[in-house]
């Protein structure tokens, strides 16, 4: 049985697709057979970040509607051989995703994969609900600012009431907070919420903090999951997050500014 992980946020532009690409690549690099599904029907991006947009023939909706088999639609990653991508359709409507259709595909993938990563679209509409419905775990991607935190809170409420686990009365979806675009210097100047502010408001365990970095943007533009930029802060932060997702205990890094790290460490949480 595969573990189903949804990457979601409510708010758009916070880094869901970047996170989906890096987390799925990280899981696959550790030898777990992983598939990442793009649920953003009509606005597909994942294939660009994974640099496989020229290899898309069939997509998620084709498979749901029986126009192609799963094997025809799955794209094998060129860098990590245990990683597969199921791209979204660019031309269809989100309503093409039906609960039954999604369930059938997830069940079929569950037989052969260890991890299924669902890249959710923004918002709380049908596409986002379909992406989170079957989840066992959720990575809630949040930027350190008030509106993003509010939207994450909303999505946490939906996970607790509208997911399959909630409807069936099973154990709740396991929630993880991933704080992205974190800039310790701006936090010190009071321009951003701090890690402890966000943790206090959302009250869910912290999976990782990804520092704001030019490397993330460059990597997306080159079609490279940033986790493969092993020298960069952001790449290492994602590597840590994957390790924690798999149960390893790792200390949080990149939460303080470069120069004043001693002082800010002293006053952390104060």
């Amino acid at each position: 049985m595969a573990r189903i992980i949804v990457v979601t946020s409510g708010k758009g532009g916070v880094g869901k697709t970047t996170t989906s690409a890096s987390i799925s690549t990280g899981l696959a690099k550790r030898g777990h057979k992983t598939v990442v599904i793009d649920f953003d029907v009509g606005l597909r991006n994942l294939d660009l970040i994974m640099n496989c947009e020229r290899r898309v023939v069939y997509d998620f909706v084709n498979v749901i509607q029986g126009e192609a088999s799963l094997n025809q639609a799955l794209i094998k990653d060129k860098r990590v051989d245990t990683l597969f991508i199921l791209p979204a359709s660019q031309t269809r409507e989100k309503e093409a995703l039906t609960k039954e259709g999604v369930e059938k595909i997830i069940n079929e993938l569950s037989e052969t994969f260890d991890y299924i990563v669902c890249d959710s679209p923004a918002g709380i509409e049908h596409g986002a609900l379909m992406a989170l419905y079957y989840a066992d775990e959720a990575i809630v991607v949040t930027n350190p600012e008030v509106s993003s935190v509010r939207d994450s809170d909303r999505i946490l409420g939906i996970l607790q009431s509208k997911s399959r686990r909630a409807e069936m009365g099973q154990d709740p979806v396991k929630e993880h907070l991933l704080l992205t675009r974190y800039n310790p210097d701006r936090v010190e100047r009071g321009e951003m919420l701090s890690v402890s502010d966000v943790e206090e408001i959302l009250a869910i365990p912290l999976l990782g903090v990804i520092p704001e970095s030019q490397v993330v943007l460059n990597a997306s533009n080159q079609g490279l999951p940033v986790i493969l930029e092993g020298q960069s802060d952001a790449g290492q932060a994602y590597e840590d997050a994957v390790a924690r997702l798999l149960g390893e205990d790792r200390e949080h890094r990149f939460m303080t500014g470069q120069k004043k790290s001693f002082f800010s460490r002293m006053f952390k949480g104060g």
Partner: protein
Amino acid sequence: MSDTATSGLKQSFQLKSASVSLTALELYYFDDEEFETNLRDKISQAPGFFKDIPLIISLEKYQGLDSELDFFKIIGSCRRHGIHVVGVRAANDDQRRLARGAALALLPGGSLRDPTATPAPSANDTAPEPPAIAPAEPAMVTSEPAPAKIISQTVRSGQQVYAPEGDLIILAPVQAGAEVLAAGNIHVYGPLRGRALAGIHGAEGSRVFCQSLEAELVSIAGHYKISEDLQENSWKSAVQIQLRDDLLVVTPLDKA
């Protein structure tokens, strides 16, 4: 009490006595536009609560002319806001006649303060005398206080928790964008960041208690304060909020 089949024949239904709690609209006078405006204001305080609720019109304190009473307009206004008028508690024969004309059920008079004493409306009632309408054992539930509703999970943005009869106790944060409502008191053993509406059926003695006041809105029996006005004192500390002379008063819990 149920009407059991004595003949042994199979019946398609059974009549049972039911006791439900209803919201009553106490009408003082009726003006079409004013009614609509006031209704809209009330509903905007708790949109979720008023959705699809049954409502009775109580005329015991009606002071306007009976000729001004237009039940069709009242029903129309309410329906536009998703509220269903099911019956009328009339004070005189003219009002009963008007209510019957609008196909509304007639309910016996009673104290509005005690919602449990309101019998369920019955569709085939035409006789106005109370005993004929409510032959069931009158108040089996009056002495028993309504149980409190206890919530131990965070109430997240967009979620609504509603205790229609008694108190509401929340052992977790109420987040910004969440709404908690109760007929009685509301206790929040965590920060109150969303909206809290206590005494929604009009119980003016209801209070709101919280560990940290960060609310968007607090209302007691329809009297409310918004975040801006609440920030003046005891913001982000443990307080109780009560109604005194139609004003919301915030008191720190350690000084209570």
